[in-house]
């Protein structure tokens, strides 16, 4: 019985997953703030609290995410690419392609039957097509990003959002609102745009079922449906999709001989 932890310090949120005997026994999620080291600490503490466990019981802590080097109390760091692959494989063993859309970037990762990374592609530094893009556009519509998922489902005449730049898109959305467009249709247009950009990344590594969608944006139902429609495939989405990176990180810790020095 080994208790391991994965801490994923993303651009937007800090996540932690605790794993024991192939089961997730605790998790936490909180926005990242100014002090990443503290955020990482807190993520672990909260997950431990949820699981009712003690810090001393954790054998290995693995850090991942863009702030992985701030998990200073951990033993390993692994890139989020490896972790999303591993985590997705754990949740859906048939996974061959992972699409991860987080707060600041989008990645497509091709994995082999053992959950190992075969190939990956990710976007350049621009907020277009990421979670942040949706956050901003949701704001322009007067919603919180957690509300817009279901909202688009009944869209009938999706508008064409021509701008990819988040800032320009935000005003485009505002002007659609001013012109009385249905938020459903605006959202459908936004999703269509993000999905086609993601698709181009996915094509880069090759689309092959099963596809697992991870990262915070996968909590958006409208995005999931749009992706499925474009791929003409069912897409795996776990209720734990935002934790996939942290889960993968924890699993990496398990594969290590215990006590490897940091």
């Amino acid at each position, binding site marked *: 019985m080994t208790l391991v932890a994965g801490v994923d310090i993303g651009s937007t949120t800090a996540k932690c997953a605790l794993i024991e005997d192939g089961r997730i026994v605790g998790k936490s999620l909180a926005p990242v703030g100014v002090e990443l080291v503290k955020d990482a600490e807190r993520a672990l503490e909260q997950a431990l609290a949820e699981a009712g466990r003690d810090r001393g019981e954790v054998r290995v802590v693995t850090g991942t995410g863009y702030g992985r080097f701030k998990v200073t109390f951990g033993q390993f760091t692994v890139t989020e690419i490896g972790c999303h692959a591993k985590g997705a494989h754990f949740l859906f063993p048939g996974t061959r392609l992972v699409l991860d859309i987080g707060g*600041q970037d989008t990645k497509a990762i091709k994995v082999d039957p053992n959950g190992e990374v075969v190939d990956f592609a990710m976007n350049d*530094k*621009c*907020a277009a097509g990421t979670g*942040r893009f949706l956050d901003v556009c949701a704001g322009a519509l007067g919603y919180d990003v957690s509300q817009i998922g279901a909202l688009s489902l009944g869209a009938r005449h999706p508008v064409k959002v021509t701008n990819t730049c988040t800032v320009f898109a935000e*005003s485009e959305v505002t002007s659609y609102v001013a012109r009385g467009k249905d938020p459903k249709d605006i959202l459908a247009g936004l999703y269509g745009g993000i999905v086609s950009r993601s698709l181009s990344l996915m094509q880069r590594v090759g689309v092959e079922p099963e596809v697992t969608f991870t990262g915070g944006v996968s909590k958006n139902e409208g995005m999931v449906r749009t992706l499925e429609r474009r791929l003409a495939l069912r897409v795996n989405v776990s209720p734990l999709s935002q934790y996939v990176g942290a889960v993968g990180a924890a699993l990496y810790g398990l594969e290590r001989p215990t006590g490897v020095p940091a």
Partner: protein
Amino acid sequence: MITCGLDLGAGTIKGALLEDGRQLLATAIAPTRGNPVDGAHRVLERMVEEVNVLPDEVDYLCTTGGARYAFPDRHLQVSDITASARGAVFLLPGTRHVVDIGSQSSRAMSVSETGRVVRFKMNEKCAAGAGRFVDRCAKYLQVPLEEMAPKALAAAHPKMISSVCAVLAETEIINNVADEIPLADILMGVFLSLAQRAYILMRNVGIQPEVTLVGGLVRSEAMVRALEQTAKTPVLADPRSHHAAAIGAALLGHARLEKLGGRPAPLLTTSG
């Protein structure tokens, strides 16, 4: 003759009333939020109230800005580049080079002594380096816009921001805060990073004195200093130059009206 210029921008609506193409009677500003046409009406109302004229005593109305076609009751519309150049030269006649930074736009133009645009260059696809970036930074750092400049000017070692993406800069700023970089240095870094973007545009059209900053960023003295530092040339700013495009539109409206012998053409009621 009273002419009105309305600048329907992405961030704010600005208006200017001009008498005989010479005297600035009033200016007004309102946030765009949603429907720019409503905002423009409000701005117009405020100005006519202020100078105590009736709306139909305004002889000619010229719109400019991104939503210039959306305002139906106009006689003419002109591009905001043309307009802000005219406005800048009206306010500061020695101007030969105009830098215009608005909420989503940044432009540089070289202008003739009459305020005619000779050459210009603008950002197109990416809003990095526009005012929106400043707004967001103000939000993350929890410093009101008005207080940014005085704070920034105290910077000893400004910290440049590499990504001026209005949206992603947040992460970098958070890192800077985490690294305990003084607030003043971060703030000045914001303006300097913006200035660097603007400088690329400025060089592209060729810098010749005098250089004038217009658009929303003139409200920030730190921006003026940052531009001076980056472009190594004095930069003029007039407190009224936030309204440069509106003033320019009013001026061009006046010129047009004169050409028509004082009788305005019918209103254009089309939009788009």
